């Protein structure tokens, strides 16, 4: 069972009645697994993808205010979006159990930052649990609900990529709903607290934290009770899983006392005292920031990230841990060998409609500034059609910033922003309203592939389907764009490269004279099985003898199915990966890419 499936299963075995999420690697499979278990067992609950993490958080939080057990899941940068309700919910507390799963991505493998969600828990002053495996992640859902209800406080579970995307055999329990009757008790002094009452709630929150830091069920665990010595190792999360194996391999299991922290914040008070009394030197291994370490306030005896014994950046891979532990215990370990090559960079799929859009954008605004956003289309980098990627929705506001910066120059560059359909709904709409009000001269290209592609094809508000594939209402992108006050809004299929390029030129000209223009580039994602029938017939493409190997198509179009044979000074089509979209037929300036007619 995948770590994310284990988390989902744990929620349903512990009576979760409402689960919400916005997709984001490595958290995406949590909600989709909730839905699969729910359907297979006819488990009556509400599960949904929300338009963004803030909305997801607020829906699930209100659910817990009625006494139900609820949960919201997201990736770590999603919690930035949801941080507003999160900070406030910590003060107001909960009624039914409330779990926030915020999945971190040390590495980072598929994220903008390596931020440690446990720091967010610390900032909000709520407890956080740190699982070491899919199995423990599932167990921690029950623990988190118990903790949440014992202290009326939101509880965070913080898995990392190596937990979410590990697979392990996991024992299953029975799924059961505990409470299905919502009962909201009005209490404005709490649920609508004014600053005066907030002060009081803050005091109560501190009292809760004091209780939680001596709560037995989440106390640190001594893993090797027989080991004796003056040094100790303190671990949490996946570093605990690595360390167990490494201590055995290094024959240290009976010599180096090993403690696993289940709840990195607040760290148990007795544990802090015990460690500092019993050991001369303490090594702490955790991802990604030194959250446990900074609660052990003895800088001379605690070794970790603060005194640079443990790297502050990147994943704590087992080979890194092995070297650190060996050094800490005075042993030797083989030097860590690093893989030589960087590996193949990711690229847009062969046949991806985004590639055609980017090619047309470059043609229409060759000297433009290209702001872009979070999604598969970040990979437009490879085509030189993406200059900036900041965070969800920023393509529009950054385009505005560039426009205002350049507007007093005699000849400012054209500005083209690209953003996916799901990202537009998530955080693009307020930015577009602002651009309309300020009359920002730029073109927004909404790359509408009818799905949230990067994270596995979750529905968007335009899809009209729910998390379980059930029919729902739709919000039409054109109407939304026009509702924001945009006057120029046209839709086209980028597979028609010539027509689409002409449209882009028109939109760029409009934006320079009149203000914001929106082009909706609409073609379904090739990976989306639901939309297979929307795809055009496959074309067979070949490169003719007239190819002179100039590699224009390779550098400018960058389709993985076009392969440059440098020795032969030719380009060829790799049939293993060609999708037959035919967009490249309009790319070669010499017309050497041609269709094979049958």
């Amino acid at each position, binding site marked *: 069972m995948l770590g994310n499936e284990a988390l989902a299963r744990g929620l349903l075995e512990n009576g979760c009645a409402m689960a919400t999420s916005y997709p984001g*690697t*490595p958290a*995406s499979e949590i909600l989709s697994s909730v839905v699969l278990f729910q359907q297979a067992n006819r488990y009556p609950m509400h599960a949904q993808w929300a338009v963004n993490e803030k909305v997801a958080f607020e829906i699930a939080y209100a659910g817990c205010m009625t006494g139900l057990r609820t949960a919201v899941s997201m990736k770590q940068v999603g919690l930035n979006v949801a941080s507003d309700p999160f900070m406030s919910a910590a003060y107001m507390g909960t009624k039914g159990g409330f779990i926030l799963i915020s999945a971190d991505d040390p590495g980072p*493998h*598929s994220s903008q930052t390596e931020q440690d969600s446990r720091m967010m828990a610390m900032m909000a002053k709520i407890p956080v649990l740190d699982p*070491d*495996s899919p199995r423990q992640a599932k167990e921690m859902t029950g623990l988190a609900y118990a903790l949440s209800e014992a202290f009326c406080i939101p509880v965070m579970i913080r898995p990392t*990529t*190596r937990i979410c*995307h*590990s*697979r*392990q*055999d996991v024992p299953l329990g029975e799924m059961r709903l505990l409470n299905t009757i919502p009962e909201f008790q009005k209490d404005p002094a709490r649920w609508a607290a004014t600053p005066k009452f907030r002060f009081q709630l803050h005091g109560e929150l501190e009292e809760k934290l004091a209780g939680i830091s001596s709560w037995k069920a989440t106390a640190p665990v001594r893993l090797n009770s027989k080991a004796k010595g003056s040094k100790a190792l303190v671990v949490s999360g*996946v570093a605990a*899983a*690595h360390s*167990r*194996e*490494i201590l055995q391999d290094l024959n240290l299991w009976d010599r180096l006392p090993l403690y696993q922290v289940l709840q990195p914040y607040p760290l148990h008070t007795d544990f802090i005292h015990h460690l500092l009394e019993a050991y001369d030197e303490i090594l702490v291994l955790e991802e990604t920031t030194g959250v446990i370490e900074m609660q052990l306030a003895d800088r001379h005896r605690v070794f970790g990230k603060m005194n640079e014994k443990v790297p502050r950046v990147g994943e704590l*891979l*087992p*080979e890194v841990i*092995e070297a650190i532990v060996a050094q800490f215990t005075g042993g030797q370990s*083989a030097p*860590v*060998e*690093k*893989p*030589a*090559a960087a*590996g*193949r*960079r*990711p*690229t*847009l*799929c062969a046949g991806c409609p985004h590639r055609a859009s980017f090619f047309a954008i470059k043609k229409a605004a060759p000297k433009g500034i290209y702001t872009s956003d979070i999604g*598969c289309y*970040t*990979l437009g980098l490879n085509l030189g059609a993406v200059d900036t990627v900041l965070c969800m929705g920023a393509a529009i506001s950054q385009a505005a910033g560039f426009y205002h910066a350049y507007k007093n120059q005699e000849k400012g560059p054209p500005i083209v922003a690209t953003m996916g359909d799901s990202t537009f709904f998530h955080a693009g709409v307020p930015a577009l309203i602002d651009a309309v009000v300020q009359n920002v001269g730029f073109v927004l290209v909404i790359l509408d592939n009818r799905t949230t592609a*990067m*994270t596995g094809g979750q529905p968007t508000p335009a899809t009209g389907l729910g998390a379980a594939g059930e029919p729902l209402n739709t919000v039409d992108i054109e109407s939304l764009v026009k509702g924001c006050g945009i006057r120029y809004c046209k839709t086209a299929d980028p597979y028609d490269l010539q027509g689409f390029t002409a449209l882009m030129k028109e939109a760029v000209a409009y934006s320079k004279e009149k203000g914001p223009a929106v082009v909706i580039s609409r073609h379904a994602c090739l990976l989306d099985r639901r939309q297979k029938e929307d795809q055009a017939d496959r074309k067979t493409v070949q490169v003719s003898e007239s190819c002179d190997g100039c590699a224009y198509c390779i550098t400018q179009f960058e389709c*993985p199915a076009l392969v440059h044979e440098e020795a032969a000074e030719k380009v060829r089509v790799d*049939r*293993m*990966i060609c999708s037959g979209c035919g967009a490249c037929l309009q790319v070669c300036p010499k017309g050497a890419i041609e269709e094979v007619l049958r």
Partner: protein
Amino acid sequence: MNASIRQQIIISGVGGQGVLFVTRLLAEAAMDRGIPVFTSETHGMAQRGGTVLSHLKVGDFSSPLIRPGRADGLLVLKEENLSQHRVFLKSTGWTVVNTASPGPDSDIDNSVDADRFALEMSNPKAVNLIMLGRAVSRVNRFFCTLNDIETVLSRRLAHRTEMLDASLKALRMGHTAP
């Protein structure tokens, strides 16, 4: 017997080749045999054509990752990854590589031109199963058999007969192909 089995295998390829699917089949085969199993996968952006790496640990382990120099075997779906991921292999470990031109130290058991056979079967997506079939049937003391994988496939694709037939054919192709 199961208590003594401990195998660590790296499966390496690029996004779209089906590395995750192969990993999953092997994990299920281990579970069918009652052996504990741990895998670690690459998701997200890297899946879009980038390097994809799976760690598979069969037996009693607590960490999901394989350290360099500890892998018993390396299953390489894309030859160019070999230089990058060989670092995981221990000195006595095996490799099975998808290649059109086997190097001087390769033999029939550890290399197969899966791209060519997949194209000949008009099923470019079959590379992963051809490679899996090769590894399972030709590597000494592999923790599971070709038959185990067939059982897993038959269960997973029980309602998709056409796909099941194509998959079983690819798997056997890996076993028999020259």
